[in-house]
């Protein structure tokens, strides 16, 4: 008698079903690539097939993908990477000497002088050394140990790895992880996947999305009832909100983490994207060490950076790293094991990271062009940040905080009650309904605020500020017109 008959299971029943699969996976949501994006892709297909629409293209302002929106890659970076991919190009005198030198150095650190060889799981040693030197320079000389640097497949990979390491326990003892509302949904997705407890702390929209330690304390104390809070995640500059934390705020957070015995995870991938007057990026590590040994030798922390944002925008390379501070050596040993299961991060991404932390110097041939391109990208973003804030604030029913940094705007929208009701009828969250309507009518793809978390009864959307300035102006205008129409329709 077959096993199936013995079990009385219908012979065509699947072995793997939604009932017996990992229950955590079912809870995972990732709004940035969620249903609205799927619809956007479908619409693009329809446009290609000649279906008539009120627009000729879909503007995907949902994801922080600079190159997709027309930002040009930095010449120097691509030259070195091309030389690494096909070293025969070293003979080509169209490539500058400093590019060739960098490429040679990277290739010499690779097995068989090829970026196709596996690297050490922690990342190529000389790249980690260069990252450490970059951090030291950035942080005014505070030492950085290459052994505490772990290269990764984008920052997301390192973030998930750290969370995997930190999450444990059962029931009331289950690890609780503090994350801001609103937040970048990688965090909520990862926490759902790991079966960790998400502890939400609200950023203050009225105070330009600033972080208040009193709110951290409130959230933590409430959470202690049902879980074991061990981790505090902070994104600075913020995503989706764009706020750049003040130095004082960072100190307060560090003090809080020490008092409450929390592991700090500082997501700093937008560290070069700071625009507003009076705002400055302060690395958590720098502030920690400047607070003296009482803090710098005790607070456990991991900071994350990536090649996907800033002026490079090289999302497709999946380059990134994390630096761990004050990690228990036994835990470090476990971390090394965990990263070794994936074998190694993509080597082209490691090579790219090396260039980002070791860019052309003033005395090198590529310096002028490099600085010109870098400055142009960051200046354009600053201009677009300002433009976005100005235009949105002219629209009745849209309030937009200044975009101090990062690549997004997260304006608050007022929705008429009738629209909220209509959304409910359709089984949709109100801001999803709003964004879907915008997509269908104007071909603009945004992500509803519900994907990031927001205070009950408030609605937002996240839009990137990446489209080229002229196009952005058109997008802003279309959203303004749509909002007015929408409000009118449901008045």
């Amino acid at each position: 008698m077959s096993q199936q008959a013995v079990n009385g299971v219908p012979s065509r029943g699947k072995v793997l079903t939604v009932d017996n699969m990992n229950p955590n996976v079912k809870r995972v949501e990732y709004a940035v690539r969620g249903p609205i994006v799927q619809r956007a892709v479908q619409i693009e297909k329809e446009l290609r097939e000649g279906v008539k629409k009120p627009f000729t293209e879909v503007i995907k302002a949902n994801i922080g993908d600079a190159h997709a929106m027309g930002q040009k890659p930095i010449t120097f970076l691509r030259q070195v990477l091309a030389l690494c991919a096909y070293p025969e190009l070293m003979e080509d005198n169209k490539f500058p000497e400093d590019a060739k030198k960098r490429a040679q150095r990277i290739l010499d650190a690779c097995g068989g002088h090829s970026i196709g060889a596996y690297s050490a799981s922690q990342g190529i040693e000389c790249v980690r050394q260069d990252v450490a030197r970059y951090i030291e320079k950035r942080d005014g000389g505070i030492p950085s140990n290459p052994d505490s640097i772990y290269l990764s497949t984008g920052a997301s990979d390192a973030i998930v790895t750290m969370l995997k390491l930190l999450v444990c326990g059962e029931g009331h003892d289950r690890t609780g992880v503090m994350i801001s509302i609103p937040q970048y949904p990688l965090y909520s997705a990862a926490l759902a996947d790991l079966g960790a407890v998400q502890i939400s702390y609200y950023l203050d929209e009225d105070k330009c999305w600033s972080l208040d330690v009193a709110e951290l304390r409130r959230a933590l104390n409430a959470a202690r009832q049902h879980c074991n809070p061990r981790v505090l995640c902070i994104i600075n500059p913020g995503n989706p909100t764009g706020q750049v934390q003040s130095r004082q705020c960072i100190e307060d957070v560090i003090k809080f983490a020490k008092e409450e015995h929390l592991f700090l995870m500082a997501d700093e991938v937008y560290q070069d994207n700071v625009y507003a007057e009076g705002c400055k990026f302060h690395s958590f590590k720098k502030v920690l060490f400047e607070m003296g040994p009482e803090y710098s030798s005790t607070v456990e922390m991991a900071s994350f950076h990536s090649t996907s944002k800033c002026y490079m925008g090289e999302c497709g390379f999946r380059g990134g790293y994390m630096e761990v501070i004050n990690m228990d050596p036994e835990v470090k040993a476990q971390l090394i094991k965990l990263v070794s299961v994936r074998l190694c991060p993509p080597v082209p991404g490691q090579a790219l990271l090396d260039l980002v932390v070791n860019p052309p110097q003033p005395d090198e041939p590529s310096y002028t062009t490099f600085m010109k391109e870098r400055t142009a990208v960051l200046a354009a973003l600053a201009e677009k940040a300002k433009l976005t804030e100005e235009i949105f604030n002219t629209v009745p029913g849209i309030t937009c905080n200044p975009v101090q940094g990062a690549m997004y705007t997260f304006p608050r929208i007022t929705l008429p009650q009738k629209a909220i009701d209509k959304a409910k009828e359709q089984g949709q969250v109100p801001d999803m309904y709003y964004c879907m309507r915008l997509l269908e009518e104007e071909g603009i793809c945004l992500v509803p605020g519900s994907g990031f978390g927001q205070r009950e009864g408030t609605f937002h959307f996240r839009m990137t500020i990446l489209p080229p300035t002229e196009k952005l102006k058109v997008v802003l205008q279309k959203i303004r017109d749509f909002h007015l129409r929408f409000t009118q329709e449901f008045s």
Partner: protein
Amino acid sequence: NLTCSSAQIASTQLREVTDMSGVRKPYKELIDVCWCDPHSVGVKPLTFVRQVLAACVYPQLMKSHELPLDVRQRAQWLLGRCDGGSVGSYNAQPCIPEIIEKVSEFTTRRDGGVPSYPENIFISTGSQWAIMVDILNVLVNSEASPKTGVLTPAPCHVTSMMSITALGAAAVPYYLTEEQGWTLQVEELQRALESAKGVCNPVALYVINPGNPAGLVQSRKSMQEVIRFASEKRLFLLADEVYQDFVYGENREFVSYKRVLAEMGPPYSDTVELVSFHSTSKGFMGECGMRGGYVELVNLDPAVQKHIFKLISKSSCTPVLAQMALDLMVNPPQPGDPSYPLYNQQTQHIKNMLAQNVKTTHEVLNSLPGVISQPVEGGAFVFPRVFLPPKAIQKAEEEGMQPDTFYCVRLLEETGVLCCPGSEFEQKEGTYHIRYNLTYTSHLLRHLTTFHTKFMKDFS
């Protein structure tokens, strides 16, 4: 939840020996044949692949006519598939759809016309990532009691074992029959399944074909038996086929599990749930550092498949260059293309080298006293059995090492050759092996012969 297995201790000890900088060594160079990492041991990347990738990274290269026409055309096509025409973009969908179509066309061709559907394929960041993050993560309920079990071949390569235990599942070994060339016996699958009673709840059967470290290439008959077993016992089939390009020996060919399953017809062909893995790391490309691969799903519950694709979108995409490398793997230059002659020459060279190495390694190893090496039918490794003298085993115990680790440490210290000890691979209790990969140079066998002869004498 990560336990430190003896295997980990073994490789740490080996690595520590290699890190002994400043200590005078009797050898001039380190010959690391632990992994299958062709470029690191001197196998050249394929020119066509690197030319296309370079042109994609730095499109200015396409302006000159120094690159062959087919290179430029392919690079142009690939860049046209990227948002913003740049390899630096994320892409709206985590896997470039046109490349998935090419993969689907590839598997259809490879499998003699068995249809392949793009919606059942996704691109992964290397096969190990896919196995652990994308598939096992969905299969394994870490809160389940008893634990989820996965039947795994013994011997088996260490990363898959680690993936399984890291997720809170239990690996249930089924032993391949060494004396018969590492064949897979269904009776042994049965025994393994029964041994799991009361210990864990087996839900999946993991097979590696061509094998690693064992160099078997399964016969169609054997594969049919596995499929029938999976069907009867309601097991989810995971087929790791990354070495499919490496098949040696006269009467051996690689047939994919998907093909065998389809050819068996109903009820198997439309009920057995199968996931197959392939990668750009192995084969002739050997692009391990790119971290590219693909996964093909057959007969999965549509609701489950939806969750898998949702997870993939969350991990924000395989590197774009890796996706392009995948396209080049499944759609290489054809006769008549300008790059074909060189491409063919380079792949033939690798093929010939491997075939030659398989032959000489078999002869040399089997001529050594106390060494028996099964014929290597496929894959990238040779896994000879070493019958260690009792004195050596004792010495190893004294030094706190597994006997084959001790052997490998000594081998490294005296010759600079770094092999993996069999104790890392879940070998049968009381047996000892070493593993090294077949993309080696002639020095290796010479060193090994000299060392082994001396070792056996010293411990006789």
